[in-house]
């Protein structure tokens, strides 16, 4: 998909900054497609030559991390560019997450980005975090997705489960929210079920690994049909007929555990799993009943996401699908979505793991079409904790 159809004479380099929730991140991306660097604070902590940033949620931690993280992103970009010739002045713009997220956390990134843009006399670009997730996929796969017609995006993570129609026309991306969860996000269900069964956090990788050893048909889980309801006052505020609900299945797993006398084995497993235990080591700590429960849970969640996503794709005549957010890393989700898309002849794309979870490369990538369109943020830009995407 060609989006750079407006002449651009600059370097095409955008520094992206993301601090909406747990991660402080910075990245340099060229023309929305080539990652020169992609740094997340938690990675720095692992090999800590930058002073041992401890990645923790909330604003004070972002405040500590932002300078070393941006420095690391610029340094890595310089290396990728082959050293000489790259500096802060090579940037065409500074992009930053405006929302949704924690107000205090967002403000750290926004304050830093504003100061940098002002000092360098570069434009400032505000990006919606959810739009960023969509561009995490476009960044790598724009070429394999159709040029015209709407794309359907499923953004599925610990904090979000949204369906968006995304369409590029008049040099601008347009989004329409056509589905969302009414209670828990899908990733949250993975986390809470993992916790219920004495596994580690975040729950996704544990369940992904262990579910392959269980029978997905062992425990029947059903999803209640959710009917969009008319607001008492009159009209609904959003036209989002594809609604998800993952709170019920969490309770269903809890009830299964209670009625099948699994408490003792769960308590034993919880004791044996430490911070250094890997999902692969947990297999020997799980009996067949637990593995079957995990496999059935994962199948139920993936099937529900798949059914509604493909129903929405058909309903809106989407020309392609893109799946993003942390849950997009789940292997069963990838294989079942890929098969379903193949049966329908629909192009489908997933992000690389480093782009699936929160990162700043997706913010820099989403900013590129805005740079071409001259869609810049005012110097009064502030955090918008509940910023929606699309109508």
């Amino acid at each position, binding site marked *: 998909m060609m989006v750079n159809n407006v002449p651009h004479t600059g370097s095409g380099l955008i520094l992206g900054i993301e601090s909406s929730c747990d991660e402080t991140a910075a990245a340099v991306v060229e023309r929305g497609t080539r990652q020169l660097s992609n740094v997340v604070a938690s990675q720095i902590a692992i090999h800590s030559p930058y002073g041992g940033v401890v990645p923790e*949620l*909330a604003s004070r931690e972002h405040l500590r991390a932002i300078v070393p993280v941006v420095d690391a992103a610029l340094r890595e970009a310089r290396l990728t560019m082959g050293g000489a010739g790259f500096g802060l002045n090579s940037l065409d713009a500074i992009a930053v997450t405006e929302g949704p997220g924690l107000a205090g956390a967002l403000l750290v990134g926004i304050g830093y980005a504003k100061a940098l843009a002002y000092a360098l006399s570069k434009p400032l670009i505000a990006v919606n975090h959810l739009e960023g997730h969509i561009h995490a996929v476009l960044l790598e796969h724009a070429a394999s997705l159709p040029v015209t017609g709407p794309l359907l995006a499923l953004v599925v993570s610990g904090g979000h489960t949204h369906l968006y129609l995304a369409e590029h026309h008049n040099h601008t991306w347009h989004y329409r929210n056509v589905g969302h969860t009414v209670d828990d996000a899908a990733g*949250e269900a993975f*986390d*809470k079920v993992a916790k219920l069964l004495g596994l580690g956090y975040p729950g996704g990788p544990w369940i992904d690994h262990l579910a392959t050893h269980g029978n997905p048909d062992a425990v029947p889980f059903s999803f209640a049909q959710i009917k969009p*309801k008319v*607001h008492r006052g009159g009209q609904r505020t959003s036209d989002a007929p594809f609604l998800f609900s993952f709170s019920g299945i969490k309770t269903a797993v809890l009830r299964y555990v209670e009625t099948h006398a699994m408490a003792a084995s769960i308590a034993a497993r919880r004791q044996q799993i430490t911070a250094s235990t890997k999902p692969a080591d947990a297999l020997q700590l799980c009996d067949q009943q637990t593995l079957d429960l995990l496999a059935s849970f994962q199948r139920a969640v993936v099937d529900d996401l798949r059914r509604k996503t493909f129903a929405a794709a058909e309903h809106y005549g989407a020309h392609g699908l893109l799946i993003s957010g942390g849950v997009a890393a789940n292997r069963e989700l990838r294989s079942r979505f890929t098969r379903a898309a193949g049966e329908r002849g629909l192009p489908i794309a997933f992000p690389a793991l480093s782009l699936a979870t929160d990162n700043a490369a997706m913010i820099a990538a989403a900013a590129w079409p805005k740079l071409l369109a001259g869609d810049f943020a005012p110097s009064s830009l502030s955090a918008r*904790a509940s910023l929606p995407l699309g109508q």
Partner: protein
Amino acid sequence: MTPPQTEFVTHSSAETIAVGRKLAALLTPPKFLILHGDLGAGKTTLVKGIAEALDAAESDEVTSPTFTLVHEYEGTLDRHGKRTPVLLYHLDLYRIESERQLETLGLDDLQTDDSIVLVEWGEKFPSVVKRSQGEIVMTSLDGDARRIVLKMKPEPTAAKS
């Protein structure tokens, strides 16, 4: 003086939402309450009803703050025959592990004269318990039944102004 206590028993999520609507009338700002209940007790469901009653959100729009930590809804409240603005904050401290992390959420900033702050898993932190004016306790009974109790502290602690 016995502290004011209000108790409800519900048998479905629809009934829990209805109780949330009733509770909203008792939550005159400023309020800072712990929302106590195990996984699956229906805490988010109850907040749906409260948010609806305050015209702050439709029930579909109220989602779990477990990952996002703080959800804010702007609504209105009938006060002296006039609709006045109210801010509803729904917090979840499930993922918060220390008082130091908690500090960074800026509870002081949320606790204003026109706000209702409901904090899930607030009982984990003595500082939150101390700050709170009471709690809403949700308990799972048999099947889908839930007991919902609003317990105010005997002496209404002076809300931070």
